């Protein structure tokens, strides 16, 4: 038997007593832990008895960095947390500082923010779908998803020059006016997306192996979701209609007509269906926002130097992965006194053990995939 030096002492001590259990160290170098997550699995054959997540391999001290940067300087750093949904991260941070400053954002800036954030939600969900399917062994969807995601990234690139870590928003509104064909390209993308979603459904939803691999796997019911503080598609798949865009509208979301997709059992298949439907709803929002895009200024009344009055603000938004919160404290200087992030990936990952117990090794990768974590956000 190989030495179990990789397992922490308490796990080792437990396993030494019973030789039937196998401690398997999954990650940080593993094809399907979505980055540098390390999961220590305690196995009986192929059955999972318990899991232990080891995180921090990507810890960069983002929250501490904030204290040594001015409010504007810190904005690009938040893009590096959930780099798959950088626009949402930027929006949350900007809104928190704007709340401290108490400035009003012009309607045009609000609408463009909604469009870009929803596009980013689709891009994030596409990445989730591709990698999730890849984890379960379907190797084709990932390429199809990246084909559509490319179209979103092109819009970002045309808008602000960056594709991934966009830094699209500025405190007080927007830096750039939209480009000439922006509206047309957004609408074109929505058409494309609705058409391609059918393709994904054909490939996966009707596939019996896919359904068997996801139905009844990693069930997390509504009560557990609330206990663990799990948000986003996970809690909606468990039947709770909780979406911050509806519950506490921001950025003018109250003006748009869209549904919150929910499901009942809260298993992997339900989460899959919820996210698929969310992409449709995002397209709906984008269409409405583009059609009613108001004219006007794109930046509110903020000075060149941002120096919020002493105080604190907490703003949470509905990021693709769940509730993303920013708690910003100002002591009246140029730098934030403290920035604290409530990352959805980190909180949702907490439920991994609950979801994995009693399932099989193959389910663990499916469940990691269905939680949709980004390690940049888990570790910060």
């Amino acid at each position: 038997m190989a030495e179990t030096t990789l397992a922490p002492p308490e796990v080792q001590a437990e396993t030494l007593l019973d030789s039937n259990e196998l401690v398997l160290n999954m990650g940080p170098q593993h094809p399907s832990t979505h980055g540098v997550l390390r999961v220590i699995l305690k196995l009986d054959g192929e059955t999972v008895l318990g899991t232990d997540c080891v995180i921090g391999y990507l810890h960069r001290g983002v929250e501490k960095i904030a204290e040594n940067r001015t409010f504007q300087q810190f904005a690009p750093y938040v893009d590096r947390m959930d780099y798959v949904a950088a626009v949402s991260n930027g929006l949350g941070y900007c809104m928190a500082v704007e709340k401290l400053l108490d400035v009003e954002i012009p309607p045009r800036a609000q609408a463009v923010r909604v469009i870009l954030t929803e596009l980013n939600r689709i891009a994030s969900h596409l990445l989730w779908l591709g990698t999730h399917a890849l984890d379960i062994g379907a190797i084709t969807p990932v390429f199809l998803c990246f084909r559509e995601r490319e179209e979103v990234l092109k819009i970002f690139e045309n808008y602000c020059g960056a594709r991934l870590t966009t830094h699209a928003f500025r405190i007080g509104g927007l830096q750039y006016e939209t480009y000439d064909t922006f509206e047309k390209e957004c609408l074109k993308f929505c058409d494309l997306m609705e058409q391609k979603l059918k393709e994904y459904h054909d490939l996966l939803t009707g596939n019996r192996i896919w359904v068997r691999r996801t139905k009844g796997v990693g069930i997390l019911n509504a009560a557990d979701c609330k206990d663990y503080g799990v948000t986003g598609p996970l809690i909606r798949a468990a039947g709770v209609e909780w979406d911050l865009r509806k519950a506490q509208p921001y950025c003018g979301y109250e003006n748009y007509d869209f549904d919150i997709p929910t499901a009942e059992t809260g298993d992997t298949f339900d989460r899959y269906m919820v996210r698929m439907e969310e992409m449709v709803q995002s397209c709906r929002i984008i269409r409405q926002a583009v059609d009613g895009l108001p004219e006007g200024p794109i930046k509110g009344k903020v000075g060149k130097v941002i120096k919020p009055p002493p105080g604190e603000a907490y703003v949470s938004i509905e990021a693709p992965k769940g509730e993303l919160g920013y708690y910003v404290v100002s002591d009246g200087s140029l730098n934030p006194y403290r920035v604290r992030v409530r990352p959805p990936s980190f909180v949702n990952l907490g439920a991994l053990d609950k979801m994995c117990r009693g399932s099989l090794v193959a389910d663990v990768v499916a469940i990691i995939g269905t939680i949709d974590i980004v390690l940049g956000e888990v570790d910060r």
Partner: protein
Amino acid sequence: MEQLLENPHVPPLILTAVIILVFPLIAGYIVLAERKVLADLQVRLGPMRVGPYGVLQPLADALKLMLKEDVIPSKSDKWIFWLAPVLSTFTALSAFAVLPLSDRFFVADVNIGILFILAMSSIGALGLILGGWSANSKYSLMGSLRAAAQMVSYEVPLGFATVTAIMCAGTLSMQGVIASQLERGVWGAFDNYGLMLIPTVLFIIAGTAETNRAPFDLPEAESELVAGFHTEYSGFRWALFFLAEYAAIVVISALCVTLFFGGWLRPFPNVAALEMPLNTLFPVALFALIALGCSKGIFRQALVGFRLVMAALTGLFLLVAAAFALPVANELMIGLFWFAFKLAAMVYLFIWYRGTFPRFRYDQLMDVGWKWLIPISMFGLILNGIVQLLARG
């Protein structure tokens, strides 16, 4: 020379040498074909760098694998670690001995040919199990345990499907099975009023599981077990496992083609009117089309060397097309052509569902094997037996 060729042992030996020398190259090109077909399914191009359109990629891969450092884990069971890939490759290549490549190209036509292939593919599983076990790695161990369970479960329906085909043909000899299909004037898959389709489908499913291909690729499940049983293998030992896997695919496909799709016979072998169009026109047109496709590449490539490669390929395929137009050469090659054509179709099918299906879970695999495939294959055997008894007396 004449005397040498008349010795009954010499032609099989020559053919054996040719198969052993040429098959690694063929396997390399099957890998390239797989990568290209998958790329086609997945809106990308596949290998494009080594040679024009990546046609020299297999050679580059082989060179790389041969030059790689040979790592043997320090805590592994070295002899078994060494033995396992050899065992897998040896058994997979041994099975080629009884494959009827055409009416005149085969190493041996023994009266237990089918049994020999099944035996070899079973022993080949031992290679995976030993390889995974000896590496002393947890991922490898789990991979080899899965391999063991899978082989045991799926050999049963595979066996039942084969038995049904043997019963229909009335012989265990590979050439004999083809001869019986010619005699009965129908492919094994459509015999017994179409009831033989049951074992045919089951054979393809169980055969996929037997060769560890997606969606039954659990022993190497990349996203779960990193690389399963060959996690600790690298360089040429890994290449041997790879070679064994592709050899196993070819063997299972060949067995399927022989048992159910007429082996080296052309479609409708008893309809004389189709002799000319199928045996001469079809191959000539096929290779001429391929040559035409290659000739376009001559003008599309920028590098002179790449243009030369495309020109050489064009010439080669034109030559093959011309050879099929010559009656003497045609007679020599047509059996091989149909066998290879059907084999290629089977291999395409294997690649196709790798690109389409997600992977089964371990318990679901057992479920499908024991609760569905085995009962259905038994039912198919009994049903075909009854029908055959009533129809043929």
